């Protein structure tokens, strides 16, 4: 026993290095099969369209600054995709490989951060504890949906630079002579983090609280930093006041911003209280059978007692808050509170008042560090009380990491195969609208229309708010995908709803139109369908006031049927609602040319030239415009 007890106390450098390398190798080994997995959802829009920056630098710039996922455009993330495109074959596998490499790098950064933090707590603890905790973070199954979902590079990069900002701050604080270089690095990394993904803004409060709770305004020479104390508290108070003020002043805007969501602000906040505990449970005691990319089946909290778990979750949060308040009076308590706050603040952007979707596993990528920090603080506190249990506790932690690794490996295997991924999604979330529509699409593409209808109906029943026409439209799309004969009588089922909306699912319509455009389903009466659409959208009695995207898709349909008048009318409606949409204007130009409407054509060309001067046209659009100018 004594030999083992000596083992972890003073672990020599080579052993630490071996342990660290083994951890990284194990993670790479586990994730490696997942690289052959498919591209998913948002990958197609963001990653499937990466231009070659060497052959067309302008297109590269368009790509770099053209992302609209967040208010800042996430240029650092987009740059990573561009760079990757130059040095790899541009395959999904290559993108996932980059993600995996980044995950390994992040694991090293988590280790570095924990090392710096625990060095401040107890120098004898640092090495093995930090390695095992960062191994736990690296091998958490919760991150499979981040690492193997290419577009989540954004969240990963934000974490990379966020961690670097925190590490730089720690280095600055630990330096015997205050050097501004580390402080400057901290700022630079913070900016890069925010430009990777906006939620990295949480790094600011994390650094402030790090100073207040972990370092406790104590400098290397143990003297107190009183000025820093005032400054940090002032900034924390200022930040809190600003948030409160913004919430009060922007309350109405916030409430209204939920209009396109099936939940309200208060419902989101109540639901997030439950999700908070679920995230925590999934990080500490993962249940991979519930994991996946679709969590749209989560039950909404309509009130404090509906479902009753909301009340339990809120009581739990209140208890946690009071425990944290009590803990603030103890040294290790403050560490514990910081670790908890790391998790809470890490979630403060995506899991609070903004009208985002309710649940995504990748939102835990950076906040999860806090959970492992909680574990670390708890272990450190126990070891401080009972130094004899140090080695055995580390063995337990190692065993826990192995169990996490096994969970992760099974999840990776599911993500390594596209069919298994689709099937597992519907198995894990049988009430998920998205999982069921995904399965319906797959079954239709395999020619089993009855199974496709079954899943489509399940999707419809899972989403009670889905308009009937959207459901019927999906049935039509599925019939087309299964190459089933679709007579015009089926279009008669599509009826105008009371609220003046005809079709709300632009995505389904667009998918159907693309299939019809390619004539993928010859047994589908394309003209009958187009006529039915015309009846609702272009006839004299037409009253449908649907989203502009609907008109754009229908213009594509009519174009493929060479019914240019109708196509023109649709795009006219579209551009009326989106007067500055270059894509729509270019299509309008196309129809004007075909219909020989010279005057309107010239006007439009001059408008487009103006837009071009303003730098609003992409390279591809400029080239297309040039073709029309030459005509």
């Amino acid at each position, binding site marked *: 026993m004594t030999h083992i007890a000596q083992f972890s106390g003073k672990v020599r450098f080579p052993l630490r290095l071996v342990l660290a390398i083994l951890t990284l190798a194990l993670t790479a080994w586990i994730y490696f099969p997942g690289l052959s997995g498919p591209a998913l959802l948002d990958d197609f829009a963001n990653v499937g369209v990466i231009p070659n920056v060497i052959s067309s630098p302008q297109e590269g710039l368009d790509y770099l600054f053209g992302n609209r996922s967040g208010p800042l455009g996430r240029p650092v993330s987009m740059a990573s995709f561009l760079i990757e495109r130059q040095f790899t074959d541009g395959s999904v596998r290559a993108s996932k490989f980059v993600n995996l490499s980044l995950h390994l790098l992040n694991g090293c950064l988590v280790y570095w951060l924990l090392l710096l933090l625990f060095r401040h707590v107890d120098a004898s603890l640092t090495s093995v504890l930090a390695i095992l905790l960062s191994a736990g973070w690296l091998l958490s199954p919760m991150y499979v949906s981040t690492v193997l979902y290419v577009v989540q590079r954004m969240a990963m990069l934000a974490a990379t630079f966020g961690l670097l900002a925190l590490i730089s701050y720690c280095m600055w604080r630990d330096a015997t002579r205050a050097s501004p270089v580390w402080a400057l690095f901290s700022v630079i990394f913070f900016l890069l983090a925010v430009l990777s993904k906006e939620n990295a803004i949480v790094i600011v409060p994390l650094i402030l609280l790090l100073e207040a709770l972990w370092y406790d305004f104590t400098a290397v020479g143990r003297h107190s930093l009183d000025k820093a104390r005032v400054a940090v508290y002032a900034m924390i108070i200022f930040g809190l006041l600003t948030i409160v003020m913004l919430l009060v002043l922007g309350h109405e805007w916030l409430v209204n911003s939920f209009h396109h969501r099936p939940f309200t602000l208060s419902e989101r906040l109540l639901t997030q209280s439950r999700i908070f505990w679920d995230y925590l449970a999934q990080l500490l005691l993962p249940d991979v059978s519930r994991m996946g990319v679709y969590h749209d089946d989560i039950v909404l909290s309509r009130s404090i007692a509906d479902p009753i778990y909301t009340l339990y979750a809120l009581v739990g949060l209140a208890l946690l808050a009071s425990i944290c308040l009590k803990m603030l009076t103890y040294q290790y308590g403050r560490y514990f509170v910081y670790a908890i706050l790391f998790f809470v603040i890490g979630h403060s952007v995506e899991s609070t008042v903004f009208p985002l979707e309710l649940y995504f596993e990748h939102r835990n990528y950076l906040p999860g560090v806090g959970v492992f920090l909680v574990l670390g603080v708890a272990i450190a506190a126990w070891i401080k*009380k009972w130094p004899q*249990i140090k080695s*055995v506790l580390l063995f337990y932690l190692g065993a826990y990491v192995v169990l996490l690794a*096994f969970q992760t490996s099974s999840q990776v295997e599911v993500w390594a195969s596209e069919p*298994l991924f689709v099937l597992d999604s519907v*198995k894990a979330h049988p009430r998920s609208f998205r999982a069921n529509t995904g399965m319906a699409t797959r079954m239709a593409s395999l020619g*089993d229309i009855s*199974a496709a209808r079954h899943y489509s109906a399940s999707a419809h029943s899972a989403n009670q708010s889905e308009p009937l026409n959207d459901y019927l439209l999906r049935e039509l799309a599925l019939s087309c995908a299964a190459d089933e004969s679709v007579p015009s009588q089926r279009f008669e089922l599509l009826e105008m709803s009371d609220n003046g909306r005809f079709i709300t699912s632009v995505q389904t319509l667009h998918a159907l139109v693309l299939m019809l455009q390619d004539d993928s389903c010859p047994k589908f009466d394309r003209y009958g369908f187009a006529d039915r659409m015309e009846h609702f959208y272009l006839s004299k009695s037409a009253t449908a006031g649907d989203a502009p995207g609907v008109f754009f898709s229908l213009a594509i349909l009519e174009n493929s049927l060479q019914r240019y008048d109708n196509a023109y009318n649709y795009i006219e409606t579209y551009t009326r609602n989106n007067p500055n949409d270059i894509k729509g204007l270019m299509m309008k130009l196309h129809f004007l040319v075909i219909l020989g409407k010279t005057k309107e054509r010239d006007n439009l060309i001059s408008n487009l030239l103006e837009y071009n001067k303003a730098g609003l046209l992409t390279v591809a659009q400029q080239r297309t415009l040039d073709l029309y100018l030459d005509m």
Partner: protein
Amino acid sequence: MKWRAISDSSAGKKRTFYLCVGILLLAGLIAYSFSLTGALFFDDRQNLVNNGLLQIDGSRFDDWRVAALSSGAGITRRPVAMLTFAINHAVFGDISPAHLKAVNLLIHIAISLLVYAFATSVLASPALNELDIGDRRLWSVVAAAIWFLHPLQVSTVLYAVQRMAQLSTLFVVAGLLVFTRYRLRWALQGASSGEVASAVLWIAMLWLLAIFSKENGVLLPWLIVVTEVSLFQGIWRKQTSLGLLRVGWFALFLPLMGLGLVLALSPDIVVGGYSYREFSLEERLLTQARILWQYLSWLLLPDIRAMGFQHDDVVLSKSLLNPITTLLAVFSWVALLWASWRYRHAYPLVFFAVLFYLVAHSLESSMFPLEMVYEHRNYLPSVAVVVFVAAVFGLMTRQISVLRPEFLVIGVLSVLAILLGLRTYAWSDELLRSRVNVENHPMSPRAHFFYANATFQQYRDGEKLGYSLEEQKKLAVRSHYHFERMYDIDSTSLTAVVMLHQLESELFSQMPGRPDRLKTLSDLLELKRLQSSDYSALGSLVQYYSRDLGRNGRRRFGLMLEDLVELFPNNAEFLVLKYEFYAADTEISPIDRLAILEQVAVANPHRMQVYAYMIAENRKLGDWAGIHKATLRWMEADQSRRHLRALRQVFNR
């Protein structure tokens, strides 16, 4: 001083003595080494040979997880033991008997070392430190040597799958060692709460490892309590702590109270399992009283003629007086327990050995509806017995002046080594092992089955093995004879009937007065409550008829299966047999076969094999949507994701 104890003797004599013990141990090791090639059999097949999930090359991490969960044995699936089997396969690239048993032998050596260390701690315990046995280290070596060389351990070490029992024992003994080492210190100096916490955490880790090797590992805390109550007696910092003593006694009875509570509140957990056995709970308990004495006699006076792999010839105790030895056995256990408790202060080692032996047997040799006798169940309980025997030897050599320790020890170990050599030799070859079993247990149906089966395999491979036609004929006749003997002893044995039917159809079709085995089979199926071995027998008949669709009797057997399915429409096993029977039949369409499989999936959605069959049938139809649907159902049934590798391959083709 006479040289009654080696400790008193000169260093040279001591060295010679240890050298002799070393040579004997080496002889035992060599005996084991020459027997490692004996074939895998019985549970080895299901858990190792036919376990595709286990047979990994180790290049994919998840395969290790799947391999760890690949056993259906026990409630934990015994992942620690299965991982070691997976390592065997990954390292050596096969599931060969020699490689598996070599690792078992290494584990046996490792446990022997632990037994030595544990024995040293036991003999140094407060209750025994006054015991006049001379050199405690020497008698600990003797205890470990007896344990290592004991011929009863052969059926654990050379039965590959019993690595599960070995590993469980390894971790339990390690846990006991950790406890006794800490406890010896605490008895003298006391301990801080940190040290106690550290000990508890170490022991808990070993406990978990033991349980996940085999469920018997759950007994570790109870055995610790036995050690505490009998050997440490609540002594803390050289004083008797009444609180600790009381806690110890309470903890000793706690598991019994727990079991009583389970029986009172939910007896079905225990009693329910007896519906598949040919004996009742009462019969098992009564019989075990005799068997526990039988085990003990094997340990103390190893009669290798009575030992064997199968002991299904054991006479059931129907009541206390039938047979009368039951009453004697029960009475003597009660008397021994009472006496060892009554005189626990005078004879603490007896108290310890009796309690340890009974507690270590309490899981497999008590109320749970397991089979009656297995030698490997003594692997852990024998640890206390050998420590006891070694200590008694020590006492004897101190008390009886003419009894010289070196002669006693080397004599006993030599006898054990010879017996071990004989027994391992018998286990080195499948035919030999099964023949010896039959000779030692002529009334055991299974012994006859194994011998008949081994002989039949020899007949099958006759040409390859260079047998003349005459010799091959003899083998076939011998095989038939032993299957007949099996049937004579147990006329309800489906296995015997099925094997006789196959043998007679193939080799003795012209035999005058040949019995209608299919009729016998049909009658048995109407009467008997089937066990897993019966389904396996039917499965072998299904395979027999599937290999050649033109065989006589196929139609009759097919109708028999149809009748069974009609009679028991919810019996998934019969449905699977029906499907397998028709799987190669081109007259039955894949759609009809899928309908049978659908019935299986409804009857038992957790029968994973059915989904693999569904996928295969859909593949024949070229129905990819059907493949997807079957895969989804498989994933839903496979909650622990054990079949991910197979699922992956569905779409990789």
